[in-house]
């Protein structure tokens, strides 16, 4: 994936670019808003990672300009401002996701991944399938190997999110934001508990586990290789 990092903190940008490259991506870096805009307008990027506060041209205006030109490249905002209002401003300006500093690098990777795959047809699919686990969005019905699994509303939401991001790393923060609409860290293992409950319903009694815990990062729902 080609990723453009627009970030004025040189040290942070250096690590980010290094990390992205190590993870198998191609990453470019711009240190201010004007350079960033010029590079982004050149096109060819799959994702932009944009700091909100940038010299010369701030992140919000930069993305606003891109969107005004009809460029719909996915944008992930990075910001030290973590208020709900700041977040809403970022998303209104055309951002697709918003990550508050400080963040874990795996979080950034997972978000980038999610943003790029959002374009794929699974996003709007009404019938999700991972191995023999199936979810009918319209009927809100879940089956595994043809056996119906009864889920509570939140468990259903959790599973739907995991299935829409099947094969990807999904972090705890992503789940909190997207399933519970919580934009803060509850500082407990509360998500782990929900995951283990869900796991008990969809994996217990079946030979191949589908819901995996990625240590120190999050979870992934995926079909066996």
């Amino acid at each position, binding site marked *: 994936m080609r990723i453009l990092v627009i970030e004025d903190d040189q040290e942070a940008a250096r690590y980010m670019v290094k990390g992205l490259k190590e993870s198998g991506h191609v990453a470019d870096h711009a240190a201010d808003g004007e350079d960033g805009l010029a590079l982004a307008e050149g096109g060819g990027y799959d994702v932009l990672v944009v700091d909100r506060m940038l010299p010369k041209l701030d992140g919000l205006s930069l993305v606003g300009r891109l969107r005004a030109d009809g460029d719909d490249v996915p944008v992930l905002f990075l910001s030290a401002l973590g208020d709900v209002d700041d977040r809403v401003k970022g998303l209104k300006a055309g951002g697709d996701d918003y990550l508050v500093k400080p963040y874990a690098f795996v979080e950034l990777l997972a978000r980038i991944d999610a943003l790029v795959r959002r374009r794929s047809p699974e996003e709007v699919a009404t019938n999700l399938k991972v191995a023999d686990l199936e979810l009918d969005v319209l009927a809100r019905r879940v089956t595994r190997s043809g056996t119906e699994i009864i889920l509570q509303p939140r468990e259903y939401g959790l599973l739907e999110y995991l299935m829409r991001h099947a094969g990807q790393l999904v972090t705890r923060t992503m789940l909190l934001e997207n399933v519970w609409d919580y934009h803060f860290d509850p500082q*407990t293992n509360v998500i782990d508990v929900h995951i283990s409950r869900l796991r008990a319903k969809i994996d217990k009694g079946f030979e191949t586990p589908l819901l995996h815990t990625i240590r120190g990062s999050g979870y992934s729902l995926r079909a066996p290789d």
Partner: protein
Amino acid sequence: MPQIRLLGTTAFRVVMVYLILFGASVLALLAFVYWTTAGISTAQTDDTIRAEITGLAEQYRAGGLVGLSQIVRERSRNQRQSIYLLTDPGRRPIAGNINAWPEAETTAEGWLEFPYNRPVGGEIETHLARARHLSLEAGFQLLVGRDIQERLDLEQVMRSSLAWSLALTLGLGLLGGYFISRNMLRRIEAINRTSREVMAGGLEKRVPVTGSGDELDQLAGNLNAMLAQIERLITGMRQVTENIAHDLRSPLNRMRSRLEVTLMEEPDSDGYRESIRETIEESERLLGTFNALLEIARAESGHGADTLKPVDLSTVVRNASELYEALAEEKGLAFTAELEPELNITGDENLLSQAVGNLMDNAIKYTPGGGTITVSARKLGERVELSVADSGPGIPMDKRDDVLNRFVRLEESRSSPGSGLGLSLVQAVALLHRAELSLEDNSPGLRVILRFSTAPS
């Protein structure tokens, strides 16, 4: 700071304006009384004289000069206030009670005023008289008048009492103004003095309150409340700085030693990777602590007080319950939520969720397996009451204030994970929402209650 001069005080200026207005009113009133009284009395005198002259003129027409002089003589003997003089053409007296024709000028209307000597109790006094002059046939003259000395004396008395009243009004007003201003000045100076002491670092100083409940007392009360708030914030900040330094130093130190030791190991060994992973986890905990501190600071500084919006507390608590119920059940706790629908308050949904979450998290953390956790939210009159009760060990009465302080974790709970910031955030959120936070005995266990006002703040 310069001393305020008495004459420059607002109180004194207000008193002066009132004094001038009041003085002018008094003056106008007295002048009116004076002029009407004096005017009526002059008119009465003139009427009496005119009537007498008319009467005497009739007598003259009926009885001639002889008859007139007889009547004049008679009246001169009886009348005490009246003055009569009948003269021949040479202005020599024929009859009457004054001895000579007065030297005063006669006005065009035939009036004249003049001094004359009058025996009073054996002594001769000079009185003023007012008289009218009537010319008879063949140059004979008649003068009829009245003593107006008494009236003049009365007028004099009125004039001087007028002056005295005015002087008294002004004098009392000035004196009152002086005392009111001085009192005001003294109280304001007390406020100024306290301000200076506070600026000099005496944050614990307070403005004296007289107890009269007047505007200055209210001002002093508000200033004191403000000072108390500032003092609380500053003390809190000082304490937090100390606590941060103390509590964050040990994990940072641990990280440093771990990395130093790791450097001595072979790279790519299992220990190497494990140690890096542990360091990342430790730094995550540190960041978590910093984030919690930031949230508290944000809530405490009243950040977003203007962004408070209508929030349904019932929904907030239900969402949090859905998140934490699983955690409670995992631990073998009975979790019940009794929520009335539509509990509308004004607030910050995100912070409220965090506060409610922290309360549930604490309850779950400190209640041993088999216990119960009851969350309830209901409307009580004009208030919305949220309560999170557990059957854990509770908090001893004397420690209840302590646990609200940042980083404080009671000795018994040192072993459980957590930053010790949970209740501090709850308290900050309560403060931001003007909600009342109380820790009560659930016997056994702890009941934390938040009481919100439903009126928009």
